[in-house]
């Protein structure tokens, strides 16, 4: 990974490990707490079973609409009292309890993006120096580029709690939307529509999770548009499965422009892979909290429980905030 082009957190010294599905049970370390969002996919359930942890907790996300009868019977559950992401994250943190001296790993695979990002913000706020994240790749998406994850349409597009800095609303001349692109055209379109006044920069996942997925991503983005001329279109490329490289790409692109007032409002919208969403979150929480920047997402009514087939591999990411320099 190239060194950061200017001062700021160093995302390079972060570990990511690729693990075969069977290898999750033989990771070099075990954890005190595993938190995973329950859904019907093989990759989520096998990871929960195989990762070694003293406590294993399922978060039951309301958007999946599971009935009581469908929930795991013998595992510790967090069943939130509301679908509000602030409430879900808060009740999850309460269930986890005191993290001092404990190691926590979060399997992000089944999480709703907005809930995941608030949870990460809470971990930053709690000054947890180190935590781990797991993401499991599917064999493939059920309908390739036509796969839809959200159901029931977009309810709203809004900033996520914990991810709003400060900007002058009277100055919008150089507002910029950074769209992390993926498959869900409806979600992406809702974000683009919300910030239609902003200059748009697309982030494509390259390398992609699977070779064909890059072209599928490009096809989805093509469906968004519209009116931009070639000279107006801008694209960044960040690995679909590396949050640290994603954060680095954003840092390299926007660090100077934000601090020198060349961007009136920077809107980060990570509607691509969840791993990229983590990268967006790390970038924001490390560098943007007092700048004219925000992270916003489309909020779906419901989410499909099963959009993938198989489990090709997992990734373990060690987020060391002290090493990153994000706790200063």
């Amino acid at each position, binding site marked *: 990974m190239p060194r950061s082009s200017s001062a700021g957190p160093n995302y390079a010294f972060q570990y990511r490990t690729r693990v075969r599905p069977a290898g999750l049970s033989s990771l070099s370390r075990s954890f005190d707490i595993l938190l995973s969002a329950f859904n019907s996919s093989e990759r989520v359930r096998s990871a929960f079973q195989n990762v070694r942890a003293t406590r294993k907790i399922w978060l039951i996300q309301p958007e999946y609409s599971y009935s009581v009868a469908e929930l795991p019977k013998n595992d510790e559950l967090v069943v939130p009292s*509301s679908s*509000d992401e*602030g*409430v879900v994250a*808060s009740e999850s943190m309460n269930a986890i309890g005191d993290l001092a001296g404990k190691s926590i790993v979060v399997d992000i695979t089944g999480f709703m993006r907005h809930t995941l990002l*608030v949870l990460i*913000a*809470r971990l930053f*706020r709690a000054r947890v120096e180190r935590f781990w994240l797991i993401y499991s790749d599917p064999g493939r998406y059920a309908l390739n580029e036509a796969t839809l994850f959200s*159901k*029931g*349409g*977009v*309810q*709203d*597009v*809004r*900033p996520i*709690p*914990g*991810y*709003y*800095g*400060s*900007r*002058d*609303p*009277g*100055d*919008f001349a150089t*507002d910029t939307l950074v769209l992390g692109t993926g498959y869900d055209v*409806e979600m992406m*379109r*809702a974000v683009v*529509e*919300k*910030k*239609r*006044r902003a200059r748009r920069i697309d982030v494509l996942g390259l390398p992609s999770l699977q070779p064909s997925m890059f072209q599928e991503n490009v096809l989805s983005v093509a*469906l968004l548009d519209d*009116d*931009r*001329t070639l*000279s*107006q279109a801008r694209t960044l490329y960040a690995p679909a499965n590396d949050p640290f490289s994603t954060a680095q790409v954003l840092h390299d692109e926007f660090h100077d422009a934000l601090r020198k007032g060349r961007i009136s*409002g920077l809107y980060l919208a990570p509607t691509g892979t969840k791993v990229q969403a983590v990268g967006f979150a790390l970038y924001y929480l490390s560098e943007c909290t*007092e700048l004219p920047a*925000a992270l*916003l997402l489309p909020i779906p*009514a419901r989410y499909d429980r099963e959009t993938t087939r198989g489990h090709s591999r997992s990734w373990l990411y060690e987020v060391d905030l002290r090493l990153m320099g994000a706790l200063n």
Partner: protein
Amino acid sequence: MLYTNNKPTVETLSGTNPFRGTKATDLSDSEINETFVSSSRILDRINPSQRMPVLLTGGKGSGRTHLLRYWSLPVQLLRHAERPADTFQSTGYLGQYVLLGGMDAGRFSVSALPDEVVGIAFGYYFDLGVCSALLRSISLLGELNIVTASETQEYCRRLLSLVGVRSRKAAPGPGDVLSSIGKIRRRIDFEVNNAALDLRRPVFRIGNSPGEVFYGAALLARECFACLDGVVICYLLDELENLDEAQQRYVQTLVRERREGVSLILGGRTYGVKSFETLAAREVNRPGAEFEVLALDDFMRTQNRQDFRSFCAEVVTRRLELAGIALSGDPEQYFVSVAQLPTRSTRRAFATLRRTLTRFGGPNGTLDSDQVEAILRSLARAQNPIMEKAAILALYQDWNAGIELLDSAKSLALNGDETNERLARLLRHFRSDLEAQIRREMGGRPLYIGFETLTVLADGNMRNFMNIMKAVHSWCEFSGEKPWFEIPISVASQQRAVLDAADWFFGDSQVVGEFGDSVRQGMERLGELLSSIRFSPKPSESSACAFNIDDSRLEARTRSVLDAAAKYSLLVERPARRGRNEDRRVRTLQINRMLAPRWDLPIGRRGVIDLSAREIESIFGTVDRDSFRKVLADRLARLAPPFRNHGDATLF
């Protein structure tokens, strides 16, 4: 690349699309000015210097933002570039554009706060944001020497006092005020952000009463700057849909408590207007009393069709001029607008008639093969497909009415086609539908061609029209045509373009909220139903593209789904009429004409069918596909031999 002074040749035009840039948000201030085509009817209705606030609504692409930005200060100054100091005296106003989307108001809707508190907390932030925008405009006037340094200093000093900040400088400037306001605003931003994360109430000091800074900043400007003496400061507040209900009540409070010398024009999408109530005592602002309403697309749709057509012609001419092309006359001449029906068709309908007569034997089931042939001989007009279709339709109508078909066929053969009054009447009503049927039987689709037709498809919405034109130009390029020079734009390019534009419109009209899926599914089903009726052997109405429904008989949720479809312009509301029993209200809704090509529907305003509550519930009220299939089958059974269930559906 788009806007050039060099006259292009056909070759250099290749690769550019003069109709790209359909959204006002993508245009610079100078492009807004250059591409603006005035509609005197709108400018006669509303004016930024008028006292009465205005609510400007419409669907996507109706021209709201273009209009608001046209009135905004930077564009005003462009129009008076030679003598900028005269801008305000000649126009009577200063247009202060504010983009409400920049407030990111969604973060104020913290669940821990009651609505009234959200309204007030947001209101303070809102006032400061608008004040910042006005201050930037004052800075601009200073740069252009339209206002003096001493005037600006006096203004800044008094503005700081207004917001409760003691200045350390003797002569503060706009930058100092922006910095001070920025500090207040940042505190609010951080507190709201942290409170949302910590699930607590945000705590910050509100330094001014609602509206005090909003109106105070404008009134001070009128007092301090000689060039603004007697000039109306008009706040142009765009994207109202980005405020939630509580926040809109704050804006309505500002409308109600307006001050002399300051006016408001609010711009918002039709679906985005959430309240006319104020914060205090839930007073309600009423159109015609506290404000005027202008629904832009309704206005353009209901005005004389020729006015919108002329407007479109002007826009096309202007866009092509900017690309260096001068049209020699009306754009209509550059399009193929007539395509003759083939003189010989597949006569599929004739073959179908033979089969159904043989199978069912007419209304009484008694026709033998000789009688069937006799009927067919009377109706056959192989050289005149449209007349043959009309004759078949007439026979089906008689079959449905239980009339003896031998007699019917004889009457249709009498006196030749030229004097057959009944066939002539049928053709007057059903020509469009019969032509569509013939084209479909020959493997084609109904035609939507000609400049006039393209303007009708756009249905009063300029962005829709521009998207059609953009697609037309793209398809011409793709197929190697040379539009705007010698050869008229082909039928094929126009057809592909309107289908593309229809698909774009359908995908772009995403309904946000809980009814999104139901609206989308409902529109598909409605389109299928209307198309099936149009292409049935005996259509019940000519050119049916609209329906009547007594919505008092619908489930509440279904009514909401219909409302959402109308607010997002997928359906267009026509003036309501009273039902047969006077206490019922019948709504008339038409599929947006942009969508007509998607389902091969007509684009006239004639045909309206009555749909029952059961039918509407199966279309918009349920995910169950079987109930819709049953409703569709029941409806079509009345429109094809042997015509079961005589009589059409009623509302009651």
